[in-house]
């Protein structure tokens, strides 16, 4: 039992857990640290009601305290599909450094201003022509090179690029033949998306007439749910298939053939995140309650690739974020819990 107690102590020193009153799904870690080394983490509820919640927590990596800010919680229509803080220090945009911009997606794309003790709805981006119908957004990505751009993915088969400063649609592309489930920027004008049509496509805003299919799921029309572009080496991206335990690693220079397929999850994979500080590490989490950290080898062995390390959560992990500003921390969400893990 000595081992166990030491381990739990070790764990407690290197992890922090927040327990909510409702199931959590969406999650975002602020890229800027507020005063006193506090990092904001936003979590979105998954409540099967119209009114959902977004809570803003403050994480102190030194004290390992994860503290909710009740004054910063706000209602959100429907469960948010994604939360994201402004990718860079928003000093250019905002007057106070203590102010963060938070974007959420669900029925529409929304921008929120997270202040010291309040959150204000800044804007709602709606491109729909009818009020009666709504095509929900499955995801979005904030362009970290050109932060005025946010790209959204919708089940109406399109991706919409918003200029959030002007509040106008820069372009809307019929990206896929079926619902689009995720979108990721590669550079200022290049993004990629995954879809129910089973394909990963790359788009260049300078040539909207074409796209490139980088990958298609082996079973035709097996939806691809998530996409992660390796920010350390943009040649690589990762995607996951619905109901599959595989993480598919793609090299965009060799379309069609994945360079690696990581198949050590024992349930379907739910979330993936590249390491912000290393081009060859990726974390995945899934229904097997495990978060796996992989190091991509140069050459795969005959038996596939084993992960480097494993973390077992109590139950199915629904979300995974790897903090860009504090790369030693991975955040996972499972059930009602959000947990920060030191890696």
């Amino acid at each position: 039992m000595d081992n166990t107690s030491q381990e739990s102590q070790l764990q407690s020193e290197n992890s922090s857990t927040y327990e909510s009153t409702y199931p959590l799904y969406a999650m975002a870690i602020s890229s800027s640290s507020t005063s006193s080394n506090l990092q904001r983490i936003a979590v979105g509820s998954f409540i099967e009601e119209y009114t959902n919640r977004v809570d803003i927590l403050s994480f102190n990596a030194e004290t390992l305290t994860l503290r909710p800010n009740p004054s910063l919680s706000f209602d959100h229509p429907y469960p948010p599909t994604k939360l994201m803080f402004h990718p860079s220090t928003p000093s250019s945009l905002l007057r106070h450094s203590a102010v963060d911009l938070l974007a959420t997606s669900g029925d529409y794309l929304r921008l929120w201003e997270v202040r010291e003790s309040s959150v204000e709805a800044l804007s709602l981006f709606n491109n729909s022509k009818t009020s009666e119908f709504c095509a929900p957004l499955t995801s979005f990505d904030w362009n970290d090179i050109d932060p005025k751009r946010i790209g959204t993915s919708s089940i109406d088969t399109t991706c919409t690029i918003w200029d959030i400063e002007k509040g106008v649609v820069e372009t809307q592309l019929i990206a896929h033949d079926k619902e689009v489930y995720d979108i990721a920027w590669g550079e200022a004008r290049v993004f990629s998306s995954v879809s129910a049509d089973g394909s990963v496509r790359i788009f260049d805003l300078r040539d909207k007439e074409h796209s490139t299919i980088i990958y298609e799921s082996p079973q035709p029309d097996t939806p691809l749910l998530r996409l992660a572009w390796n920010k350390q080496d943009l040649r690589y991206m990762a995607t996951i298939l619905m109901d599959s335990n595989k993480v598919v690693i793609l090299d965009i220079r060799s379309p069609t053939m994945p360079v690696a397929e990581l198949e050590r999850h024992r349930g379907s994979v739910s979330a993936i995140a590249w390491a912000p500080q290393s081009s060859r590490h990726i974390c995945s989490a899934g229904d097997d309650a495990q978060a796996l950290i992989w190091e991509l080898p140069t050459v795969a062995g005959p038996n596939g690739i084993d992960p480097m390390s494993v973390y077992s959560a109590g139950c199915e992990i629904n979300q995974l974020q790897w903090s860009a500003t504090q790369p030693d921390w991975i955040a996972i969400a499972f059930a009602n819990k959000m947990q920060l893990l030191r890696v």
Partner: protein
Amino acid sequence: MDEARPRNNETAAASSSSSSPSSASASRLPVSSGWRPSRVVFGPYVPPQGEEATAQRPQRLRVAVAVRKPLVARLTKEIVETYQICNPKFKYSEDLNPKRFLTTPSVGVLNDGYDNVNSDLILTVNLVLVHAEKNKRYIVKDLLGHGTFGQVAKCWDSDTNSFVAVKIIKNQPAYYQQALVEVTILTTLNKKYDPEDKHHIVRIYDYFVYQRHLCICFELLDTNLYELIKMNHFRGLSLSIVQLFSKQILCGLALLKDAGIIHCDLKPENILLCTSTVKPAEIKIIDFGSACMENRTVYSYIQSRYYRSPEVLLGYQYTTAIDMWSFGCIVAELFLGLPLFPGASEFDLLRRMIEILGGQPPDYLLREAKNTSKFFKCIGSLQSIELSEGSKNGRSVYQALTEEEYEAREMKKPSVGKEYFNHMNLEAIVTNYPYRKNLPKEDIIRESQIRLALIDFLRGLVEFDPAKRWSPFQASKHPFVTGEPFTQPYQPPPETPRVPVVQTVKVDNNHPGGGHWFAAGLSPNVPGKSRPSLYSAHFQMMQYPPSNSYGSVGSHGSYNESIGLGSSYGSYGDNSNMFPYYSPVGPSGMNMHNQGGMAMLGNSPDARRRVKYQPGSGLGISPSTGNFTPLPLGASPSQFTPPSSYGQVGSPGHYGPTSPARGTTHGSPLGKTPAVSQFNRRKNWGYSGSPQTQETGFSSHWQGQGPDNSNLPEGTSQALGSTPSYVQSNMNPGHWKQRGSGGLSSNLAMQSTDLAHENADSGLSLPDPGDWDPNYSDELLLQEDGSDEGSLTNEFSRSMNLGSTEPWVGSGRLNHGTSTSSPMIIQRLPASGQAFSGEMGSSPMHHDLQAGFVPSMSKPFHYMPHVLQNSPSRFGHQPVQRFPHGRPPQSGDWNQLKVAPPPPSFGSVGQRSPRNTSFSNMTWGRRMNPPVSSMPPTSRARKDYARID
């Protein structure tokens, strides 16, 4: 945590690195970032061991939480359902989704806004083409091509869970009518003649009218042979593949001949590879949009120029023999990689024929042909012409015009194309064609023998005299096709030309088994196995083409011959309109008023001779009579008539000398509908034999699968066996590349090909020569010819090695670049298994993503190249470069896990570098600055450099 984790992370890491290849390999790599996850919270991965390893906890939890999809699925795939649970008033309508237009222009101006200005139905992705009567739905997924006839869309048929190709005809009466002919011909060919799909004719699945557009649903096929050659750098294919393809095309042509159908536009573009991996290297003949029945040769301006037969060029009556000419041209092109007669004009075409073949059309043909004076001058006296048989003394009274003479007559200079084969004759062209590099001496000797066979084979096909030209059956017995050793010039088994007779006799189709053949006492179930043994090797398949049996019906043969000529040629005439030529003449059907008919017969000693010899000798070696109940129709006792033969020949009761059918034919005003109905009637009648038996005969021979195949030489069957998989593995990269085209200069080629299609189609629908230029690939060929290899690099870089050509290394060729400036480094992955680049850390990508990916490629296409156009739609189109799964572009050498390496016998496949291809096609590269110089060379052994501008 239900299991204790070792705290000593170092130990854990060590053990894991010894067991895991990933860690092991990582250790010898420079890990630039140096970052490694610590193991404070995360533990080492322990590979599951047996049952115990299957994670129990999550599954138990899963039960407790109730079986629900993961949240990620509930907020993607099921988001509408989820949001509706959250808010029952939530409404989403798929119908409001923006439409992706496939048709250009996409503005609806005709047909209540359904059609664009060209009368094309405006197609969008996921548009449903509804066959109302059958309650079938075809969901449009992509555009495969378009032409003057309309568009071809790749559609999803949810009933069969498969993709099909749907030809959506323009909403104009002329196209509609012409397409109906195609439907009729193909339906008949499929159902009556080839019910088991063994004769390499494209399958027609369905047809219907949707929004006033005739839609014809075909099986979806793959690359055409022109594209295949193009992928092979316009170098010839290996002889074994040429043989394999020849055999299959002949099989299809034999069927056409049986059915009395002339394809009229046979060319490499109209022969497509099958997609199915079950049938590797299988090809099919497509596009019956210009086909006609042999007795209804309406148009005189037919066939794409390179493949146009001399009789068509000269304006002479034509038969199924014109397809055999085209076939000869195709076989030569498959071997040479370039067209045999790439005539830049008809004058040039004829000039090339005469030069390469060393001869000219026979005098009887020239005397009667409408356009003779355009290309020939008469050098004999009038008398000698009247004496006819001018060729008896070996001297023709006609002499081809020189360029200057032609110019003087026509008041314009003839366009003359480049020479590819430097004034060589056929023998020299084939003999001197470069051999594959590094071929062992014995292989060269072997191939030189096969080349001799090929020359002999071609000689029988590109034969000026249509009467002497071999029939599909005759050609199919040639050693080049059978694989037998070629020892002496081939003497084809005699054959009576096809007798196209339209039967008016009604047959009770409800009793397929009770047809005339049964009545005649023929056994419909001839055991196929016993047949071959009864024949010498040469005549092994005597029973094969039913056409063969036509001639064997006693004296009918010769009579039929004349009828046939009268019949099929009677309709010959001006391209503008045939109707005036059709007069309700007497039932004899001899169209004396026409220039064809008897006159030709009188001047065609060859044809006559064959006709006369046919009955007695044709199947004289047929010892099989005993196998069959002799025909009770007074035919020659030696006659062999397989049950699959068609009624009009063997059925005495119906085949009267006066042939009422002929009268009917000519009496009809050539309306499409009457033609159709008669056609069907005749077919039905003929079909009343036993299709199964027919099939047996066919399949055993052609597919090389049946037991009958046993007498094939060993080598041949091996080739057959191995070639398919070989080709298949090669098709894929090729296919991929083809789709990848469109970026740079390759557009040129595509467009010209496209043009050809349009032209061809306009030719069939609007028989206006001025409107129809079959010169589909001139630009391309000229381009190739007139410039150095570099100019074609783009084409070439998309190409592949098919068969016999020497392996090539990507770097060598790609260095030619395409007038580009920024070097691009393509890194190949290591040969073994899946791989992940080791340079990830060391060569982070330039933040500009240029080096990284391959945007901006053109539309994928199957049938025809399709050059994408913009749409006025608010939404950008998103045509995609598609890399279909299961068709990996990578060659076996560096992705052995996924791509089966080609069989050793085709080891010449060599390396292909599809990725180079993709890079050299990058259009973004052209647009974007600065050049990507930030990607350092990789440490891989093989580097391929491509340049993009």
